[in-house]
């Protein structure tokens, strides 16, 4: 029996499988990828995750189909002691592999950079972000401490509230900082994550696109109740937000007076053990 053309058979298998699987992944998995369309940044992540998944699919199939093919076809017969071909490489294939993977990888990095610089991608951008989206911004300070987040609105008399509400379709400038150890502010549905470091003002931008309830979690280990550092926030209409913030200002008027004046960071006392 003549040896079949393995290279051709495998290539056909892989190309067909990729042509079927990649669109399926985009159409079926794409829409359910995290974190949903809660904000401009979150929708951007869904696109990015879909692009990465679509690029990963043919690579995954290449190796997996190859492995299965090799395991099924290139076997030692039972009890046999056959030797394989003494091939020690293939210069052309190696060169092509390097070229193709390099192009793939560099284009991924370029794509990631472009997407990051578009709107900050909801990722903590440090005290003075390079990319500042244009438009009127609502400033909100996120203050993390063991084990809760509170929120301060400098444009509303510096009132500090225990739960977050944001107006819809309004660009928000979050200033994330901590009073003790490192935390990380993670608003899942809004596609926002920024570490809360003591003595650092970590700025991140987000623009919620519809009214919703979103989850707030801590994403950096901060002590025993790290897992319980969980809350819900709300995105509401501009009118509802105005009513809500006015209520909060009245409710916490006394507390606001007692607070230290609004500042980008609050230098903590040197932390000492509770012993």
């Amino acid at each position, binding site marked *: 029996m003549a040896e079949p053309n393995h290279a051709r058979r495998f290539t056909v298998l892989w190309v067909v499988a990729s042509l079927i699987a990649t669109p399926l992944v985009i159409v079926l998995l794409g829409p359910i990828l995290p974190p949903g369309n809660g904000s401009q940044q979150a929708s951007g992540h869904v696109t990015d995750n879909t692009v990465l998944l679509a690029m990963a699919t043919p690579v*995954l199939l290449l190796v997996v189909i190859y492995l299965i093919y090799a395991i099924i076809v290139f076997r030692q017969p039972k009890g046999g002691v056959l030797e394989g071909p*003494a*091939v020690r490489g293939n210069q052309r294939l190696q060169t092509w592999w390097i070229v193709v993977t390099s192009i793939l990888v560099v284009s991924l990095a370029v794509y990631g950079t472009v997407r990051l610089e578009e709107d900050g991608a909801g990722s903590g951008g440090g005290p003075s972000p390079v990319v500042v989206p244009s438009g009127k911004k609502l400033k909100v300070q996120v203050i993390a401490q063991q084990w809760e987040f509170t929120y301060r609105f400098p444009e509303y008399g510096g009132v500090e509230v225990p739960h977050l509400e944001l107006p819809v379709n309004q660009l928000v400038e979050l200033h994330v900082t901590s009073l003790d150890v490192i935390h990380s502010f993670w608003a899942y549905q809004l596609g926002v994550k920024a570490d809360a470091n003591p003595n650092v003002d970590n700025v991140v931008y987000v623009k919620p696109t519809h009214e919703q309830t979103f989850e707030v979690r801590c994403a950096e280990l901060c002590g025993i109740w790290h897992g319980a550092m969980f809350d819900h926030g709300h995105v509401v209409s501009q009118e509802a937000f105005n009513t809500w913030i006015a209520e909060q200002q009245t409710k916490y008027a006394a507390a606001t007076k007692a607070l230290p004046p609004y500042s980008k960071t609050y230098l903590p006392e040197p932390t000492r053990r509770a012993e």
Partner: protein
Amino acid sequence: MSTTIESHSQPAPVRRPLLRRLVGFNLLTAVLLGVAGYYLGWFIGHQVSSGKSFKFISATDENDVALLLAYLFGVVGFLIGLGFANYPVSRLLGKHASLREKEDEGIGRYFGLCTDHKVVGMQYLVGIGLFFFIAGLNAMLIRTELLHSTPTTIAPNQYLSLVGMHGAMMMGVMTSGVLGPFANYFVPIMIGARRMAFPRIEALTFWLLMAAGFILTSTIFFGGFPTGWTGYEPLNDQAVMGMDSYIVFFALVGISMCLLGLNMIATIITMRAPGLTWSRLPIFVWSVLATSVLMVLAAPMLIATLAMAALDRTISTSFFMPGGGGSPYLFENLFWFFGHPEVYILALPGFGIVLELLPVFTRKPLWGYRLAVSGMLGVALLSFFVWQHHLFVSGINADLRPFYMLSTEIISIPTGFIFLCVMGTLWKARSSFTVPMLFCLGWTFNFLIGGLSGVFLSDTPSDTDTHGSFFVMAHFHYTIMGGLIFTFFAAIYYWVPKMTGLRFNERLAKAHFWLMFVAFNSTFMPLFVLGMKGMPRRVSSYAPNLHGLNVWVSISAFVLGFSMLIFLFNAVYSLIVVRLPAAANPWRSKSLEWQVPTPVPVNNFEQIPVIDSDPYDYGTPLGIGGTEPATAGA
């Protein structure tokens, strides 16, 4: 491989009198001196910190000072008890001292300072196995707690201690998981040497690691530590005394790693047999060399970082305390400058084992030898330029994120070389699916998933969703457990017949592989989904809607744990109870280590071999023919 260069006669076994053996330098003396040192350090620590002379030691730090000194004195006592001071002291006094220690003793040489690299290799295998088992049990307890969405079985502080111990022990002790047992044992034989370059340092790395593992385990007596294996400040400074165990543990691991790496580099560069040029070096030795370079360059950073953390905790310095002018960013930067090369220290030996074993079981030469070597060296080099991808959302150097995104994604190019070499070697092969081969194929699948999931983490926008979540956790378990641990078992099944002259029961071994492979994927694949659904790492309470998937993961994890018990049973049953004898060269390997007698003589070679080819001389030029069994060796 036959020309005689020099010959070396074996030393005759010497039996020392029983009394001399009991009161000499051995494990018993070591433990006694270790305990004595511990209490001495504890006493001195309290003396210096309770007086008025050192005002910068606050009352709450007194116990930390005492515990740190206790650990340090204890370790020094332990090492002196083992006999590490004998040689330098004898030389200082101008006396004759033995260059080779305990190489001539019977079974006792496994329980003390021995400079025979084969004994150290066996010691490493058992010692590391012990801590691997403890760390695995921690993982089982973690998954037990996660059967519930609120803290139920285990108190939150104990849960965090378990997470920290599991992570630190796996990242610390298993760093030497391949280099300790297999590189120490086989690198000298593979390169045609009679010993390592620094045999006493080689023994020191092992005993330091054991002391370190014991110290980390002792954290449970001091309240554990809440920081996970990363030990981030200022949580580190806030933590109770158990944190000091973590600091001393990791510093000792760092010293052990650094010395192990230095020893390997010196051995591989200077002690190769005649004719063993760089292009004939076995690929496993190349991977050990690349790993060793990383160890030597990265580990000192860890030791320095932990020294600063210890000073912050004890004498109120402020390297990492924002309140005193320091910065937690400094800790993150320094830690990951060690931490990222560290994960490649775990991955690279796996590459080496897979590429070393595949030619044997495919009966083909290694495909793309030079590509594989450049892949490993490329990974090693690039691993020093990616560390801030751990800090994408931290706000540190936010302008540099595109650079770290690029460097991180570029590192997948040399990693891709390794995959191409694996695939090239499998092409038109004559593969036999023995147990080591199955583990190598398992590695290929696992590391592929690990690598592809890494693409999501290296992309800053996508990382915003996945950072600090179970997605990351799944990713690095695929690369470390799926990468290192799978090849660790491949190496065990492949090389233990050489190390012991005994073999494993194959049916049990295959059951171990299949159960481990299926349970591993069933455990960690759903974690990607959990992470994407928003479950953070290191939590003992999570959203109720994630409960079902967590129960699935926990049950899979228990099955995974059970597969390890199959291995343990097999090891005890086959190697100790029934003692199944192994063939001299059961895999028909052409590599040098299989050409020496079993058990390997103390001096490895009667005559130093002369090497005239690389060890991958398999296959026939035309491909399909060839029915003769390969003749073993030259």
